[in-house]
């Protein structure tokens, strides 16, 4: 019994916090359609650079800036206005795309020499 208690305490202090972090985050974001990492083009650009969603359905994108400079995000053709995302932070983007097609998304904050190459595409399908 005592050994079980010791192991329980050790697991609580070591593994539980790690697991709890990811479980809690998954719970908070269970309605997220996709996560996009934002990095300067020379460090990998947006990842993924292509996201496929269904027409007529609410889309929630979690855009995480894992870089060291501020990036922006916008999907002008879908009415998603530009917003700055500071380094180490994230932004939740919501929209509904009614019509199928390809819609570009861009970085809207000057982030370096290759800023204009920082882009991707949302593919809307039926």
């Amino acid at each position, binding site marked *: 019994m005592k050994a079980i208690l*010791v192991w329980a*305490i050790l697991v609580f202090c070591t593994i539980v*916090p790690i697991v709890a972090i990811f479980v809690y985050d998954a719970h*908070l974001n269970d309605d997220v359609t996709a996560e996009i990492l934002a990095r300067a083009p020379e460090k990998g650009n947006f990842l993924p650079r292509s996201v496929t969603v269904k027409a007529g359905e609410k889309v929630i994108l979690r855009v*995480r800036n894992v870089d*060291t400079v501020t990036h922006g995000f916008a999907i002008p053709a879908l009415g998603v206005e530009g917003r700055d995302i500071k380094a*180490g932070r*994230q932004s939740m983007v919501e929209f509904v795309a009614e019509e199928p097609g390809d819609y570009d998304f861009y970085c809207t904050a000057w982030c370096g020499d290759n800023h204009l190459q920082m882009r991707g595409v949302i593919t809307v399908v039926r």
Partner: protein
Amino acid sequence: MSEEKQREGEKLLGLIPLDWRFDLTALPLVRWLFKKRWFPMLLILFNLFIFMVILTGGVIGGFSSGNYSITIMMVWILWWVLLMMLLVPIFSRSWCLMCPLPAFGEWLQRLRVFGVNNSLHGLKRKWPERLKNMWLMNFLFLGTTFFSGFFTVKPLATFILLGGIIVLGVVLSLLFEKRSFCLYVCPVSGFQGLYSNVAMAEIRVKDPAICAKHKNKTCVTGNSKGYGCPWMLEPHSFERNTYCGMCLECFKTCPFDNMAFNMRPPGTDLLVSKGRGLDEAWKGFIMLSIALMFFAAMMGPWSWLKDWVRGETLGGWLTFVVLHSACALLVVPASFFVFAWLSKAMSGVKDVSMKAVFVNLSYCLVPMGLAAWIAFSFGFLMPNGSYVLHILSDPFGWGWNLFGTAGFEWTPVFTGLMTNLQFATLILGFVLSADFAFKLAQQTYADRAAARRGFLPILMYLTGLTLFFGWLYGG
């Protein structure tokens, strides 16, 4: 006059007797707490929980900016400030009491987490005699600061540092006896050890006569109530805080309740000659030099230096490494040597070696060094401390709001007073250093007139050092 007799008559700044003590364990609640096996363990487990979150944050944060990372904020803002401003100056090596880094290694040695098992496991090798000093820690800590441009801003770099220390702690715990890792390797241990000489707390015996009659010395060997000193000290007779990790085992193992946790005037241990050496002298020089370099690089106006430290170019970083090492290992010690030489020359005393003068008097730099670090800490606490409120609620920049403070944006706090606080701290450090410089000169030269003459060059050095730091911090 014996050293102990001399110390008995000394007063800090001519006001506070250096032999004044207040035993905190005279308070029944404190004594009760110190004798419980769960007391330090509870703190260790709590900190272990926090460290797991910090380590996870390091992996999640990757190479992103550190100001929204719990890893960077907790380690380099919160913990570092607590260590330098509160734990070390007041409570000596009390961080070692609750540090989770060596915990796994120690539990593997003991093959248990709770309870007592004095039959330790592992190879239990003795640490090499030639390395039973601070030299290894000096070079390891200096080496760690080469990468300060990465560790202090990149979450993953901090993860690698802390993870590496944990792994090293486990390996060395299985190879060597007891807390050899903590005593001779841990990068945090060295400066805690030296600066704990200034601390306002100590663990000592209450009545040495009781220990003299105690044949078994269970504070060293251990008993059913606790472990023999994991720090391999002899609690019944040690005189300095330098290597005492305040684990409180001696409170548990002493059958006569003869251990005390005393509050005392700052700097008391600086006058204890036993254990002094070039290793500790160099630790003092290295810490001073690092405070200088860190401020210049991180808060100074020289962007090219910042670029070097951050490794924007390999050549720049290597130049920084060479300059930083030369400053810490050569320039600062050499500058002090000049004034130590002048001290000996002006004292007129011939029968004291230059080495003794150099080593003894170098201890007067300890209060100044600690003051420089506290002043430096104001420099990032007040502008950046507000980030801590944000990261408590949103530790990984994932949009959480655990405690409702995620919306608390960056807010500098009382930064208009920052320089004043830094100056005040430096002046306090100067005053304490000067006071102990004179006392150390008296110890070294014995003759009071000679000590006065020998003190003057050191006073000049301390004055120049204070003015230099004041210029650096004040702009």
